[in-house]
């Protein structure tokens, strides 16, 4: 976990193909670097499924999980957008 910064993790999460659909749609709109279709496909193949979990909507706490890793961060703006779609 320690080798994975929030920004790197979000970048990887935005490339995912499975998991929590609403969350990933929103994460994909973060417009992070390296998110071209070809690189997304290549990295998704070895990434495996990704699951995003809003742990606390009030505080904006989100957990993003892939493989055996989990990153927890706070982003009230993101959570507000996700909730707007739910």
């Amino acid at each position, binding site marked *: 976990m320690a080798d994975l910064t929030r920004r790197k993790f979000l970048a990887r999460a935005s490339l995912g193909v499975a*998991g929590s659909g609403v969350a990933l749609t929103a994460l994909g709109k973060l417009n992070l670097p390296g998110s071209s279709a070809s690189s997304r496909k290549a990295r998704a193949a070895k990434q495996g499924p990704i*699951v995003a979990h809003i742990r606390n909507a009030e505080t904006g706490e989100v*957990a993003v999980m892939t493989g*055996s*890793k*989990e990153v927890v961060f706070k982003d009230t703006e993101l959570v507000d957008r996700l909730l707007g779609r739910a």
Partner: protein
Amino acid sequence: MSSHREAPEIAKDPVADSTDFYAFVSPDASDKVTLIANYIPLEGPAGGPNFYEFGDDVLYEIHIDNNGDALADITYQFRFQTVVMNPDTFLYNTGPIGSLTDSSWNRRQFYTVTRVQNGVSTVLNDHPLRCPPCNIGPRSTPMYADNLGTPAVHSLSGGRKVFAGQRAEAFYVDLGSIFDLGDLRPFQGLHLIPSAPTSPVNATEGYNVHTIAIQVPKTDLTRDGSNPTLVSDSRSTIGAWTSASRRRARVIQNDGNVEAGPFVQVSRLGNPLFNEVIVPMGDKDRWNAVAPSQDSQFAKYVQQPELAKLLPVLYPGLVEGVPAFKNLAGLNGTPRADLMAILMTGIPGGIVDGFQNFTGTTPADMLRLNMAITPAGSPNKFGLVAGDPAGFPNGRRVFDDVVTVELRAIAGLTYALVANYTPDPAATLVTDGSIGDDPPTLLGSFPYMGTPYSGYDSDTTN
């Protein structure tokens, strides 16, 4: 039961539900220790067509603490993978399974064993290891022991052995009696709601479990790699427990579930009956989720066990002219230092002549084994309290009558070891009520657990 269905949440997840945990110096290889973790309670042998198997999505582990801090210093991890040879049949097997490689065996499991120490993981197998099939019956799994059971014992590097697969349940207990308001034989007539004596019943007889067994050199387990020979040496004693964990997240989909995130512990087991009998309902699920190093929060339940308070109430009848548990009633409110030693710290030196399995003052539910004590030539199923220090609570052998030992301890028998106290006569008479003298046939060598009951021959209702 020992730990079968012992907590509300894990009772709904049998694949991850640890049932029994054993640790003992191997009687036929006294330089090695055998660790056995059983899972999946009360398998009806005829339970097909989808017979029992380990969870591919479960991380099974056996942990060793060798320096007394109740943290795992060494962990053996077991991961399983199921392979279906022919998805176009509903059958588990399409003909007799004559060997572990027989093409008529449709649904198989393979596994890997990983040893973790100081954060370094080492895979101990050089190819996927085969589980045996379940024991279906004489047509499907003929000559089960020779063809399928024995070949499923695999040698690993470093003089280790491993087995993972179905075995006959070895734990014995009169469940129907005990859970009917603590109706303990032979005292039915003394119960608050008395009944006539009836024949003992082993409620687990005829059922199977799934066993993970590993045999390792003692030097694999000590803190410094030494060979333990001195009982009084603190390096000789280890604490051990098993756990099962699942991924934190699971998304159920029509085209296959998605799992992600770190493994989260959902089941654990050290001493038999700890979570089952000691921990109250409201804390059982939490107990399963935490590590032994966090067990100080449960010490109050060991010091004042609910069952010790119940026995004098449930048994107002007389034994030898006095209430059955009169002296035990007088202990109400007294912290049970004997139970704390047996279950939470190990027994320090000086209490039982020539014996100790003390791991330090950190209270933790671990099965403690002093590996310097050699296997008994004539084992006694009541273990240490019957003068056999090679048995429970010095580790636990497969045949040990742990229910009776713990019942007697809770009834006050062992309090005399730590205080000026006279146990009630009833405390030396109470048993688990089962036919513990006739457990299923055990093997004389690894993995010791007996050949599983066959589905065809089973009369267990599924």
